[in-house]
């Protein structure tokens, strides 16, 4: 299946803003995160098709996955 992967803020460094990815059917968000060399602890927001999503969520054909890093300062 093909998905669109969008990266935000520091996740873009050394990677990309947006990319099409070919993934095995049923791949979950966590697997995508790890394939980028990111850890779960670095993840702030997971968005699937514009809605808040989870790491365990399985992706579907034509999904748009957006990943934002954790931001907590004041």
């Amino acid at each position, binding site marked *: 299946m093909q998905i669109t992967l969008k990266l935000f803020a*520091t996740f873009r460094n050394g990677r990309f803003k947006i990319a099409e990815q070919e993934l095995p059917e049923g791949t979950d968000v966590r697997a995508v995160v790890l394939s980028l060399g990111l850890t779960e*602890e670095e993840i702030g927001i*997971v968005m699937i098709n514009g809605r808040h999503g989870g790491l365990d969520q399985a992706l579907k054909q034509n999904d748009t996955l957006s990943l934002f890093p954790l*931001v*907590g*300062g004041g």
Partner: protein
Amino acid sequence: MDEVLSFLKSSLRDGLLPWSAQDSAARQFTLRYAEVEKIALENGLFPARYQRNRNMISTEEQLRLFNSRIAVIGCGGLGGYVIEELARLGVGQIVAIDPDIFEEHNLNRQILSYPAILGMPKVYAALERASQINPAVTVTAVQDSFCVMNGFELLAGCQVAVDALDSISYRLELAEVCNIAGIPMVHGAIGGWYGHVATQFPGETTVQQIYRHWVAGKGIEQQLGNPAFTPAVVASLEVAEVCKILLGKGELLRNRKLSIDLLAMEIHEISYAPAPAASVELVVHAA
């Protein structure tokens, strides 16, 4: 009181009450600046210091702001700007909460800090600054960490709690206390070029959803630090939300979050599922 009112009325210039008259009234009648401002606003006299608020904020609304009590949790990067703007806006009571003292690494961004104040508690700087900006504002300085234990007492009587914390765990405690206490919370967080803002009303769980993947520690601010401008941007968005909550106008950031990237100059909106409590209520109504 009639005497004070006629003094104030006779001091109007072009329909506005000059600060010099508020000052004279306070001295002449031995009143606190807050008391003078209350008398003025309750009688439809618009202080000249707020004249540029006008047409955006009416005299009645300015009185509502004056009668409001807002808790600002954290007086560092975000909190300093939040307090500055609330005081200028004319919010009458500010509860400033922070356990820390100023350190040198605060100077690049925290508006309440300057070299001569290093080593002093941040909340005293907040009190000092607000009273210089707007003597009619009453600041309650609390040099303590906000937590579930003291939270309810600290938020008592407040209409809104502003999250200006730098810790995710304390932030989640604030969200919990606000929920139980029935107080809206304006959430802001920053790290480097990035930040976000959201508003959560009692029963909503946006903040908990934002940090649902969080396990421990800090976010990207740990590596990136924070520059001068990011706290100013996010704090200003937070104050705009506070102002709208108090005046009951505009569209709030409820069930959505603005994510701000000042490096790419992008703003993204992220939607969150409305609180489960709301749907439960709907079911009850339907039955």
